[in-house]
């Protein structure tokens, strides 16, 4: 360093006010950080591999007699568009919340663990901007996981069993293009409860400052709600459990569309997600960054 240090010109001091970066800039860099981390691909890999594995397994065994399980399971080999619906049914319970928790639980805590929170909080961005960017990045990741899984399941299903019409939960037949639209709309509706899971993950990530604890805590919370739903005598609270909202998209696949469960899940999920996100925001704003 000595020779260059002696000859190079360091940036000169100045007193003019710098132009501050936007939250969008911070968000873009949060995404770039996610893209650069191997762990990011773990959750995405899971939600991509499972539909592929399912389709391959079905092709190998060529089972046509699954009518007892579910209306979409019954037509799994009759239309490729039954595959993404069936996969959403399976993955929505645990795998997609797990994938969402992997990033949401890590997004703040990892910075604490690496000591980089102090690095970014001593630049020209406010804590609120950093928090917003991190929460948005977690939301983006969860959304990507859902739609990537749906896309892979759709392509694999169509490749195996064709782009054909399907029967809905009501027994009515919808054309293939309409079914395709419904598949992606169902995934979009499923994002409502998943966002609440993300918010809980971000809260635990911010509060615990420990990635593993936050991820496990988020998944544990989901499992706990599943257990609560099974306890006799607690049927009254079941409609208000977050995990019950994981099936909110079923209303879309009925004729006519049943909006009631969707609207119900929207406010129930808001009851979980909004306070969690707000609490995480307050904790992030006020916390001491003493590690690293």
């Amino acid at each position, binding site marked *: *360093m*000595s020779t*260059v*240090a*002696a000859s*190079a*010109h*360091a*940036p*000169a*001091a*100045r*007193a003019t*006010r*710098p*132009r*501050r*970066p936007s939250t969008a*800039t*911070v968000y*873009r*860099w949060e995404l*770039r*950080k996610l893209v*650069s*981390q*191997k762990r990011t691909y773990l959750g995405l890999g899971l939600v991509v591999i499972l539909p592929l594995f399912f389709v391959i397994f079905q092709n190998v065994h060529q089972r046509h007699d699954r009518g007892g399980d579910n209306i979409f399971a019954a037509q799994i080999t009759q239309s490729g568009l039954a595959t993404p619906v069936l996969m959403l049914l399976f993955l929505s319970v645990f795998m997609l919340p797990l994938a969402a928790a992997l990033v949401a639980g890590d997004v703040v805590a990892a910075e604490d663990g*690496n*000591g*980089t929170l*102090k*690095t*970014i*909080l*001593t*630049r*020209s*961005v*406010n*804590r609120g901007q950093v928090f917003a960017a991190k929460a948005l990045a977690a939301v983006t990741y969860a959304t990507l996981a859902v739609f990537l899984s749906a896309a892979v399941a759709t392509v694999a299903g169509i490749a195996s069993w064709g782009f054909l019409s399907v029967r809905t939960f009501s027994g009515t037949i919808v054309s293939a293009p309409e079914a395709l639209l419904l598949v992606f709309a169902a995934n979009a509706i499923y994002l409502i409860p998943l966002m609440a899971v993300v918010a809980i993950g971000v809260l635990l990530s911010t509060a615990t400052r420990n990635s593993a604890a936050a991820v496990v805590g988020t998944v544990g919370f989901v499992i706990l709600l599943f257990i609560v739903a099974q306890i006799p005598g607690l049927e009254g609270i079941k409609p208000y459990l977050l995990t019950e909202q994981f099936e909110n998209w079923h209303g879309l696949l009925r004729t006519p569309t049943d909006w009631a469960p969707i609207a119900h899940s929207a406010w129930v999920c808001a009851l979980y997600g909004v306070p969690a996100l707000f609490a995480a925001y307050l904790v992030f704003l*006020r916390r*001491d*960054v*003493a590690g*690293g």
Partner: protein
Amino acid sequence: MSDAALPPPVKARGLVKRYKEVLAVDHIDLNVRAGDVYGFLGPNGAGKTTTLRMALGLITPTEGTVELFGRDPMRQGARALEGVAGFVEAPRFYPYLTGRKNLELLAALDGDDASTRIDEVLDVVELAPRGGHRVGGYSHGMRQRLGIASALLRRPRLLVLDEPATGLDPAGMRDMRRLIRRLADEGITVLLSSHQLPEVQELCDRVAIVDSGRVVYEGALSDLRRQGGAGYRLRSTDDKRALEVLRAQPGIEHALAEEHGVGFQAEESAVAELSLALGRAGIGILVLAPELATLEDLFFRLTEDRDGFGSSTREAAEESPSDTERLVSTQ
């Protein structure tokens, strides 16, 4: 507006940080002026890093305020950090990104034209050839240099460095000091937290010494050394008898037998009287030489012997107070 009218780079008043029962920082006042290379000295655990974290808005003071160029980081957030850069404890980066990508990220978070200076700052810290390598593979010294580079991206008017030479080899330490000196020469105010006394003695013109969360001295380093007392060393034809003469002589303090002679503190006038007294006693003077206290001597006296040196320097300050120095009571 003249420089004198501008708010100071750092002004802390009554900073307190308490962690439950532990009082990490106890009513610290700091005054870093424009152009200072300000040493923030103290033993490990004295509260230096906690104070710097409060100064940068990373942790909330339990009591007190801190302003950077007149702005409070706790109230004004990132705006208070305009013109301020540096790091507390070891600089940390994303290990999975390259050094250059880390700087690109931080430049993006700095806004303005910081991204145009990445090559320049990599050159300044001699990391240009390794800029494309992941930080996870960097040595400690390289990370320290990357820390400096990331700070320079912001064109700081105040550079806050927490133990920047820690973990560096001797050549790395020398280079780091040269770099800090050069940045200071270019007009950047430097707040340097360190427990490396030679580093502070070489670089700093003003210091604050903290111990157990309290400032035990703040002021010019030269004043501190003066207040440490003019020390003298005497070698004579009979050191044992000379010591007796010293102890009997008015104006002579802290006379102690040393390995090669006798050490003591005194004013110049008392030393003149002493030489005559030694002559009268038939003791020949071989060496009678002044010895300025080193920073290390002063530091240990301040942090380990508050009742001794600490009290005497407090008295000295009370006798000749000035606006350029403050000696803070440790009681």
